[in-house]
């Protein structure tokens, strides 16, 4: 006679389990940045550890998202990447779109897109399972993170202070990433380490 009760118990427990997010290493400013391991567009496995001793910028992207297009079509993102590369900063572009979702690219497609857009990132990381995305709790495209030379997370948030997809909003926008990189170069603490990220949602695989 405990049949129906047993089922309900299991359902309740399952529901309770699903409510919890697997935030094993919740990214926090001032704490070590979450480790990751992902293949890049050339098929090589890249990790955060291999860049220890260098500043790393992580940029979540989705080439179909109007907010990403605002930055790439105007060339502002590429310019930022070139300037960062000149200072020896490692710029990693991450694609966490699941297969069949907007923005998903295979290795060759990613290389083609990078060439066409004139992007100057050090590598494009392919994260179709969303493992790196969830480790960093990346919510939008674009979503920016900066890890300093010691491996500590020093910036997380939006690329600038204009949460709009209208290209006109770039004029007069304050770019948080360039400001943070300037702070790091000058040896200062990042003045605004955590800001609002904006954009389309990262296209993780649907729950069902």
């Amino acid at each position, binding site marked *: 006679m*405990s049949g129906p*009760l047993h089922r309900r118990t299991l359902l309740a427990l399952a529901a309770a389990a699903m*409510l919890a997010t697997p935030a094993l290493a919740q990214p926090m400013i001032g704490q070590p940045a979450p480790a990751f391991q992902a293949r890049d567009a050339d098929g090589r496995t890249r990790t955060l550890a291999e860049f220890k001793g260098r500043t790393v910028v992580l940029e979540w992207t989705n080439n179909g998202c109007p907010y990403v297009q605002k930055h790439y079509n105007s060339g502002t993102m590429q310019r930022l990447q070139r300037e960062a590369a000149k200072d020896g900063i490692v710029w990693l572009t991450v694609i966490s779109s699941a297969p069949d979702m907007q923005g998903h690219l295979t290795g060759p497609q990613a290389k083609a897109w990078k060439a066409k857009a004139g992007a100057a990132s050090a590598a494009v990381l392919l994260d179709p399972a969303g493992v790196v995305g969830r480790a960093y709790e990346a919510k939008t495209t674009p979503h920016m993170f900066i890890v300093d030379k010691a491996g500590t997370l020093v910036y997380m948030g939006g690329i600038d202070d204009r949460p709009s997809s209208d290209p006109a909003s770039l004029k007069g926008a304050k770019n948080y990433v360039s400001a943070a990189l300037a702070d790091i170069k000058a040896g200062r603490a990042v003045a605004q380490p955590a800001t609002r990220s904006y954009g*389309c*949602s990262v296209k993780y695989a649907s729950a069902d």
Partner: protein
Amino acid sequence: MRFLAGVLFALVFSGLAAAQAQPVNTGHLTAELVSSAQGIAPGQTIHVALRQQIQKGWHTYWKNPGDSGEATRLDWSLPAGWTAGDFVWPTPHRMPIGPLVNYGYKDEVLLPLTLTAPASARPGETVMLKGKASFLVCEEICIPESADLTLALPVVAQAAAADPKWGPAIGRTLAAAPKPAGLSAAFRKEGAALKLAVAGAPLKGADVADAYFFPFSGTAIDHAQPQAVERGPEGLTLTLAPGVDFQAGAGPQSLPGVLTLGEGGPAYELTAAAGPAPAGAAGLGPPPAKASGGGAGGLNLATAALFGLLGGLILNLMPCVFPVLAMKAASLAGHGGGAHAQARRQGLAFGAGVLATFLVLAGGLIALQAAGAAVGWGFQLQSPPVVAALALLMLAIALNLSGVFEVAGSLQNVGSGLAARGGTAGAFFTGALAVVVAAPCTAPFMGAAIGWALGQSAVVALTVFAALGVGFAAPFVAIAFAPALLDRLPAPGPWMDVFRKALAFPMYAAAAWLVWVLTQQAGADALARILGAAIILALAAWLAGAAQRRALVGGRPLAQGLAAAALAAVAVGAVVWPRYAEATSTAAESRTAGAAYEPYTPERLAALRAEGRPVFVNYTAAWCVSCQVNERVALSTKGVAEALSRNGVAYLKADWTKKDAVIAADLARFGRAGVPLYLVYGADGGEPAILPALLTEGLVVRALDAAAKPS
């Protein structure tokens, strides 16, 4: 000619102007500006609204879009002097997508805003109000869309009539929109969590199980995390996950937003200040689980009655009933050998006794609850005098079965005992007694049925209890009506005497159990008293028996009979009359044969849950035999003790042996009216899992392991 051309031109253009007031399809939604009034007077403020009809499956966003997205905007190009206010945002919906959560609207939404005409507006003119609406409309992908909208509004001398369609619609939207309600709210960071405490008159006694806080700022909280609710007498406390605002520096000092009490429920605008919680916002623990075992939430009379019937049937199998089964068996043994009519009469009498007692007990319970007492099912056994009296009654019956004295009829009818002249009355009495003693054991289904019934009208509740009674009595009555079965029974004979005397022992055991319960409730002094009374009662029984034997051989033992009656009265009076001292409570952490536990209080539970520990709460009572069986069979085992320590589960025991309003209220919240109730609160802060009423070691271990998993 030019004049005509000009007129034609104007006509064409005015036609086009009218066309510009039409709704605009931007791709995935259709937008238009609508007005609540048919015109506006100079200096008057009316409400207009931006209407969105969104394609099915797509959505637009609220003021704070959540983890991603962008709020709808309206950029006006108004003539000089005209002003427009901000949107009055209706309560948004939570829209989860994968691990993210957005706040927005689907299907159709009206965003009202105020529009004020300058005093210099000229009545008779129609003013064209233009605005550019920008939306981010998303399904799986997001598309920014925009529409150039125009609203042609006549300026009138006096306040105009309401627009027949949009006036009421905008009025309804404004009425339903969240508004300040005088709530006091404060927030503070506690460890990794953000506690938002809200108190105020609108929250007192409200159902807050689905409460949710929508902050206006997109960086205040982590929108994707669930918000655990804790109730308080005047309000509630939500446990939120802090957002990026709390990552850098001191964090914000104010947290404005909208508190809702569920989809379609009331919504309040509030601004929480950083600081200590207002009084009354916590302390009553989390709200009850919506789905309790047996689905109490979704019951109706038919289902509850069915559950009652099943519960009553199953009650025959519960350990509580065993002493009474002994009596039932004894009376049944008198029916072998063809006394069918008598058997049927007694079967019905038993059924009537059961039914009547259930209804009387239920009536008493309903009346007590209506009078405000926090009693639950089994309340009769929470009172020491009742327990003591029942113990003496069990002893008397056991002595009767042992042959020390007879209830009715002569000694020669020893075989027929309860089947003689007094047999029908005896059967009725047996039925009544069976209910009184067995009822505190809540069988599966019974708990849900009673829990639901007590929340209904008296007539409905009594119907459910009647169904319980029918289920309980059914097996016995059925046998009494089955001549084939009755004929199977051996004919009355000397074997019946031995059988009766053997059955006395379960009754002695029942008496001993009740004495133990009494000791739990009222301590060692009560034990001394009941034992003394038992001796006096035994003496009375012997005297009564002796008197009966004397009467058989022609004597008139009036003195002996009276003495027996007097002694019996003294025994009963000694245990029922005087007050019972409360048993001294056990130490804060006690040890049973198994795991260490603490006494349950809602505050301790809330504190443990705030620490993120899983908690196992065991609602039990000394007089609840199925609870005791579960303790010995499942909860006191090594496996469970190991599972508790391995998973860091705190074990709280809620002892309902004596009256306790807090426990009674807890049981009611989970749709139960009796014990046992086993709750496992997971480490993640969600609703507790309810374990079945019959436990096994494996079941408990699995539940404890699962509770600790999502840490």
